[in-house]
């Protein structure tokens, strides 16, 4: 049997985490290829709606990576992210989705190895959890998806 390869979405902030990911690449640090990175200007831009949309579209896990507290380019953007993701994790539990499918971490521009470590850990955690339960539902029953036009 082929091993389950999760699809993981990572939102990286432009000023720290995306550069951290860049550094991991430049330094030839290995990390699993399961992660797809989306660059955002600030982790504070990541609305909970984005995470829910990712999960409902079949992502197995969502990483939100921002600057360390105190380092935010926009001073308090990541403070807000911290609060939003905390409530969102609690909410996901009520909706029958494992809260650990969402993880918030801080990665600075100098932490290429930390980026690789987080992605590696998170990928193995998602492999342990298995595929996103929403994925099969959306594939078998496309009508369950909301009409995007509205």
């Amino acid at each position, binding site marked *: 049997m082929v091993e389950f390869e999760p699809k993981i979405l990572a939102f990286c902030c432009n000023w720290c985490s995306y550069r951290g990911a860049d550094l991991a690449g430049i330094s030839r640090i290995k990390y699993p290829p399961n992660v797809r990175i989306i660059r955002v200007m600030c982790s504070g831009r990541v609305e909970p*709606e984005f995470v829910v949309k990712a999960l409902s579209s079949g992502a197995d896990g969502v990483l939100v990576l921002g600057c360390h507290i105190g380092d935010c380019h926009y001073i308090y953007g990541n403070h*807000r992210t911290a609060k939003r993701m905390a*409530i*969102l994790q609690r909410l996901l539990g009520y909706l*029958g989705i494992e809260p650990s499918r969402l993880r918030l971490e801080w990665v600075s521009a100098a932490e290429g190895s930390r980026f690789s470590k987080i992605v590696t850990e998170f990928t193995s955690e998602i492999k342990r959890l298995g595929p996103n339960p929403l994925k099969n539902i959306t594939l078998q029953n496309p009508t*369950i998806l909301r009409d995007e036009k509205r």
Partner: protein
Amino acid sequence: MAKLKLALYWAASCGGCDIATLAIGEKILKLAEAADIVFWPVAMDFKYSDVEKIPDKSIDACLFNGAIQNSEGEHIAQLLRAKSKILIAYGSCSYEGCIPGLANFFNRQMIFDRVYIETQSTDNPEKVYPQSKVLVPEGELEIPDFYDTVKTLAQTVDVDYFVPGCPPEEKTTWLALETLIEGKLPPKGAVISHSVKAVCDECPRIKKEKKVKKFYRPYEIIPDPEICLLEQGLLCYGPATRGGCGAPCPQANMPCTGCYGPVEGVVDQGAHFLTALASVIDSDDPTEIQRIINDIVDPAGTFYRYSLPDSLLRRARIK
């Protein structure tokens, strides 16, 4: 000009929307001048077979309230779609699922267990559940199938317009009826309301910087009548809710609960409110943030009180 033919129907709803249509007061006389009601089960005696007999597209407009929770609702939704030129999802239930939509936190079996076995007033030692078909000496009886998942009207059939509210305010109802009577129809898919902005825009309370250390439920505090309710720690849904209602709840010292649905351009009202709510928490200490969050009783039911079936996830996954 020939009179408009109007139909009204209720599916999974409480009946409040039918009362709300009457709340337009003396304007009902103007409505009677302009329109004939051809189908309105809650007020007059009609048979489904009468509706089946009329030609397709012969009803000018249908105000459909209620979510779709069983096969009867779905059947009539399809029937009225075929017979009506304009189908309007009237009220939060048909627009977003509303209170009946909270059933999507459970499934059919869990709901049946609760209603027919567990409730304190129920005496059902043989564990009899309702069956959609049952054989009695007189023949086979049939009742509608109860669905696992509540659907909105737009998830069931094609819908032309949406009227928000639980129930819609009198002025919103009249705006919709006036639009129909005068024939000034907005583009298809429009939500008919006086405002595209949030409830906060209409709320007269004084709004300053929002910093909250503790969230309260309405019975726990007596709020200041002048200051923003969210600033006082009440979960006021105003920032994430479409206006047009005139903010009657905050003016009566009750926080907005979000019945007018998401503001223009937002899909998932619950997640959107979460965004606004998290920003007002006045703490940077993770343990304190966790403590403040834990004060929120039933976050899922609060955030998705009116919109679970219409949200991105549509229902809770049951293991």
